[in-house]
């Protein structure tokens, strides 16, 4: 018996790792502390990894391919939009991009891992650099405190997961997915032990996903992190976690379906409810997105809870729309943060009127997250995730989802209202925004166009994701 090492799937990750090191080195020799020195190599690495991924299209599974694509696209978006952040005196660009790419490589490996050992190591590769990224801002107490919170919660979750993995190993004698799925069926170990093992194992992934009750680090981390790192955490990191979770549950633990299905459903319901309720009183756009991402984790988990190929397909499609909208929102907020110094509602008031290129995409993103026309793609993906839940006869979960659609709209609407409100005081006009801001804005608009295009032809997304 031999662990089949899937070198093919490691290709893009390898490119990313190499790109990370190159970015770090180029930056070290680059005269100016700007995005350019490390950002360009990072961008190149991501593009190359993407090309490599397409080259491998037939070798990797459809699900993995889609997830990898989402991860790469999300990372690319983050890297390019990072232009707007203040590298001059707050953050070292080389390290920033190195950590970002390392994390992205970890994300890629998580969804291509076919055994729990690789999974846990990749998970750490995703986590540790992102923890460092959260605490990256110089001289910022809030950043370092957030990093501490994130770090500590993360290592505890990892420890618990490892305990689960060790028990699984005990029960099945192996840790690769196929072996597990066979081993758990034939094992003589009692069912309750397998249950404990399975549940402890998925906790690490639920933690990264930010599902209730492992969500508490999310608002702290998002608010303390550099804004696009928060975007990264909410998109790429979540994509990797939900993807890995889907793969683990389906490939390794199908025999324990009865165990995890109900509990994932409960966690999903709790996540969306608590996330939405938590978001209700936020008056900072990032805080809002943080809580909303907890809720979105619930929506992502719901179809996973009922599994089956339709379930994971639905989760993937939802994920794609969510990642796009979320990144557009974060990038737009990054522009606001750069120009105005805060993402509080008071700063956002009237943004859609005074600065439509930033404000309107933000509106579109908020509506997509809420699942509300005219952002039809948000609505369609909500439909898509409710469908398998209904088909699996989990009506109660569907109703909870419906109620949460309402709750989600409540706060998104508040944001939209603020954005369209009459600007207070004199409108801030940025004195000829730097080039980097323009690039970020272009990225935001591009993302918004993506939302519009998907809203006009939802089939574009639905037919092309597996």
């Amino acid at each position, binding site marked *: 018996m*031999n*662990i089949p*090492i*899937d*070198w093919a799937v*490691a290709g893009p990750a390898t490119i990313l*790792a190499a790109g*990370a090191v190159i970015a*770090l080195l180029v930056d070290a020799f680059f005269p100016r502390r700007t995005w350019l020195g490390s950002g360009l190599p990072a961008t190149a690495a991501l593009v190359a990894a993407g090309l490599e991924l397409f080259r491998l299209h037939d070798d990797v599974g459809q699900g993995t391919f889609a997830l990898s694509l989402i991860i790469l696209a999300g990372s690319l978006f983050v890297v390019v939009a990072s232009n707007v952040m203040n590298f001059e005196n707050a953050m*070292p660009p080389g*390290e920033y991009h*190195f*950590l970002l790419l*390392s*994390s992205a*490589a*970890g994300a890629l*490996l998580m969804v291509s891992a076919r*055994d729990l*050992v*690789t999974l846990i*190591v*990749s998970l*750490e*590769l995703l986590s*540790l*650099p992102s*923890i*460092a*990224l959260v*605490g*990256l*801002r*110089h*001289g*910022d107490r809030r*950043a*370092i405190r957030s*990093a501490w919170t994130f770090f500590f919660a993360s290592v505890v979750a990892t420890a618990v997961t490892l*305990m689960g993995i060790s*028990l699984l190993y*005990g*029960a099945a004698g192996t840790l690769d997915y196929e072996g597990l799925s066979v081993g758990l069926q034939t094992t003589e*170990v*009692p069912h*309750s*032990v397998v249950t*404990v093992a399975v549940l402890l194992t998925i906790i690490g992934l639920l933690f990264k996903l930010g599902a209730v009750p492992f969500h508490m680090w999310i608002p702290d981390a998002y608010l303390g992190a550099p804004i696009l790192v928060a975007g990264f955490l909410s998109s790429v990191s979540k994509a990797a976690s939900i993807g890995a979770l889907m793969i683990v549950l389906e490939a390794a633990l199908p025999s324990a379906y009865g165990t995890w299905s109900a509990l994932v459903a409960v966690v999903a319901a709790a996540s969306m409810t608590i996330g939405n309720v938590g978001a209700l009183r936020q008056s900072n756009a990032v805080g809002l997105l943080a809580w909303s991402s907890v809720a979105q984790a619930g929506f992502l988990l719901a179809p996973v809870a009922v599994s089956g190929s339709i379930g994971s397909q639905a989760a993937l499609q939802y994920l794609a729309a969510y990642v796009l909208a979320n990144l557009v929102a974060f990038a737009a907020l990054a522009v606001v943060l750069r120009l105005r110094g805060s993402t509080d509602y008071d700063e956002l008031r009237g943004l859609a009127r005074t600065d439509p290129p930033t404000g309107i995409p933000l509106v579109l993103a908020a509506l997509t997250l809420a699942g509300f026309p005219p952002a039809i793609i948000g609505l369609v993906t909500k439909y898509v995730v409710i469908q398998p839940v209904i088909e699996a006869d989990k009506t109660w979960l569907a109703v909870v989802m419906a109620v949460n659609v309402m709750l989600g709209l409540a706060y998104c609407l508040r944001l939209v209202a603020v954005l369209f409100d009459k600007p207070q005081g004199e409108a801030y006009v940025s004195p000829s925004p730097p080039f980097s801001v323009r690039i970020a804005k272009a990225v935001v608009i591009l993302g918004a166009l993506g939302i519009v295009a998907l809203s006009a032809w939802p089939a574009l997304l639905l037919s092309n994701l597996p």
Partner: protein
Amino acid sequence: MSATEILFLVFAVIAVGSAVLAMTSKQLVHSALWLVVTLGAIAGCFVLMTAEFVAWVQVLVYVGSIVVLVIFALMMTRQPAAGPSAEVTGNRWAAAVIGLVAAGGLGATVVAGFEGERIEGQRIGTAGSLGDALFNDWVLAFEVLSLVLLAALIGAIVISRAGSDR
């Protein structure tokens, strides 16, 4: 009961006892030192379970480096005005209950799952055999791990620099 078993039980008692002390001691540095004892005892257990190489790594990495790091950290973060404030927080009763439940739950689980099984110990985990496994079967994870260590290193550096006011 064989000698191995008796020895294992002795190590176990030492490990648990020193772990309790490490987690409750009022003196911070004592805690770290008690932890060293625990880790050492665990290394002994590893040896008794035929995992020689792992035991060596445990001693080298943990006892040799991690604990030293920890002690340094403790020294560096010693607060000048640290009074006789208890080294445990108000959370301790909840912590005790949760810890007991966790231990009890896990204990019950393993008892339910693996009672009566015995370790025969034919395959000794020597450096050679582990090296084979590492570089043949687990090389991908191993490579990833190296990247993790690099990233953690750079992260640690950059975080430390982040704190310094420039």
